């Protein structure tokens, strides 16, 4: 066998059809991205330590007051979705940095030079981030359960939380991919995580929406993280929120005034995830196209 003769490549005509090929390539690239994480455990420890630290200190500071202050009996349970989202956003932001490093090392060009679909480069990263998100969310859940958060919706509820975390992780990675493609700059890509904080603080992260000032409540209402967070909270505190249909409406009316004080139902978490994913994937895809056209 000569170096040139070796592999019998399928002819173009027999190549797997478009979307299956893209998914196959994305799976290989996702595998590589996950290996990358496993080989840098030091980097990943931060994504575990920081959310656990905030969970511990915020609970320690507010738990004794939360019931009297704003009617939350189990503040640890109230905070668990915040820790999950924080861990997931931190982990998914790393994709942008990884892509910039690939660019700096020339490996991104090597991938672009293969016949693999360029969309597979994005989908592979998103896929890996979704898997990593589930891993980090699992650690947050276990830690909180051990600390006594409880889980009103039981094992099924925990699984739904992990699904939401995975979807949010995949969606959030689009932001890092967008920044990496547009800037090619590691510092800028790192800032992808900082963008999470406005989204977090303008959602009912530390207190229920009911006690927010109107202006902040209005912002929280259009913030997708509000619905994703409240959906998870439903499962931890109140069982399956989607069964409570009267809670299944947005928390603010057409006149701009609150229409209810109860949190939105679980299904709004999935609606928000769909919208958020559509937005982040679109900007990531447009940025990839702009970069690979390289005009």
């Amino acid at each position: 066998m000569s170096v040139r003769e070796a592999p019998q490549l399928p002819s173009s005509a027999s190549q797997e059809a478009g979307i299956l090929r893209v998914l196959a390539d994305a799976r290989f690239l996702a595998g590589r991205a996950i290996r990358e994480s496993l080989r840098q455990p030091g980097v990943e420890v931060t994504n575990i330590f920081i959310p656990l630290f905030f969970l511990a200190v915020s609970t320690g500071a507010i738990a004794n007051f939360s019931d009297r202050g704003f009617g939350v009996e189990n503040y640890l349970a109230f905070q668990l979705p915040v820790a999950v989202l924080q861990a997931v956003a931190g982990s998914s932001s790393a994709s942008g940095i990884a892509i910039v490093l690939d660019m700096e090392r020339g490996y991104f060009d090597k991938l672009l030079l293969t016949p693999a679909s360029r969309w597979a480069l994005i989908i592979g990263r998103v896929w890996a981030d979704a898997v990593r998100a589930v891993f980090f969310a699992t650690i947050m859940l276990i830690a909180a359960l051990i600390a006594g958060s409880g889980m009103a919706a039981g094992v099924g509820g925990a699984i739904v939380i992990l699904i939401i975390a995975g979807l949010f992780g995949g969606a959030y990675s689009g932001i890092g991919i967008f920044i990496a493609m547009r800037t090619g700059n590691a510092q800028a890509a790192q800032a992808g995580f900082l963008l999470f904080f406005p989204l977090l603080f303008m959602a009912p992260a530390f207190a229920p929406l009911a006690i927010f000032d109107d202006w902040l409540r209005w912002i929280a209402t259009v913030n997708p993280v509000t619905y994703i967070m409240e959906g998870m909270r439903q499962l931890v505190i109140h069982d399956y929120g989607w069964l409570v249909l009267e809670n299944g409406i947005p928390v603010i009316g057409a006149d701009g005034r609150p229409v209810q004080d109860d949190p939105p139902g679980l299904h709004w978490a999935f609606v928000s995830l769909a919208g958020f994913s559509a937005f982040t994937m679109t900007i990531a895809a447009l940025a990839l196209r702009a970069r690979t056209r390289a005009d």
Partner: protein
Amino acid sequence: MSTQTPSISERLLDGLAAPAPQHDRDAAPAIEAHGLVKHFGDIHAVNGIDLRVRPGQIFGFLGQNGSGKSTTVRMLTTLLRPTSGSARVAGHDIYADDREIRRSIGVALQDAGLDILQTGRELLRLQSRLYNIPRDQIESRVAELLDVVDLTEDADRRIGGYSGGMQRRLDLASALVHSPSIIFLDEPTTGLDPVSRQAVWDYVQHLNRVDGVTFFLTTQYLDEADLLCDEIAILDAGEIVQQGTPDELKATVSNDVIYVQVEGDEPIQQRAVNTLIQIPNVEDASWDFNEGVAVYTKNGHETLARVVRSLDDESLPFSNLRLARATLDDVFFRATGHRIEPGDPAQSGQPGASA
């Protein structure tokens, strides 16, 4: 009766003894470009390149840093969209059939594009999968390529621990996974020590002679271009200023060059040039800061004494008189007006990255 199959390494060495392939001048070109232009804002990186590379050729782009070599490679390999012009690679249009081109070519860019967290084996395995090599052939193919580039023992170590030479060899192997008919190598030996450079040259010659692979390589090393290339295009400021086989190019300058260091400032150097160019048999004379005055002649031995006499007659003090055969360096100088100055120690034979 069974015969023992020679290893790839043995066959690689056999390949170097094989005759260079004959190129059919009428065959459809492996690579062709017409009026290829690339501007980055006000920077005109490539200014209208026309070229035609025949199947089985080793075609070299010789030029200094910033001459447009890498930009041309990036356009031909579909990484960069030209500002204007057209090109076909392996019969496919760079605008319309970019994916077909990527299926047909192997590319090793100037900086070895590797993921330092993977092992060598993992990188080649992933590369094979992305080229859609059948699953049952991947492991044997990866093992074969690791053997070819002498990385079998290090295959399961992370690439971050490889030396520069090992990374370059792995990069080359990754360009071969799908058995491309055309391989682009952008400065394949820049930064390598002499042993690693020789290894890369051996792989290139083997693949060309035994497997008929067409190579398009860029280099700033004259010896590399002279040794490997069937045809060389000298690139300067984004334009091809001269093109031909190494022998054809050398024939454009005289057989011999006499170098002489004349003492004095630039007007004195110019006086020396004007004096020496009057000597019968002298075809040209020029001056540059590094080499001094260069006198091009068909017969160096005969002209040497006349050079000495002429300088004495003009009372021009001189030293370091030296006779040399004309090289590609002289061709390059005549074509571009400056000497090529590679930006790394490999040209001088000093060790760069270890193998």
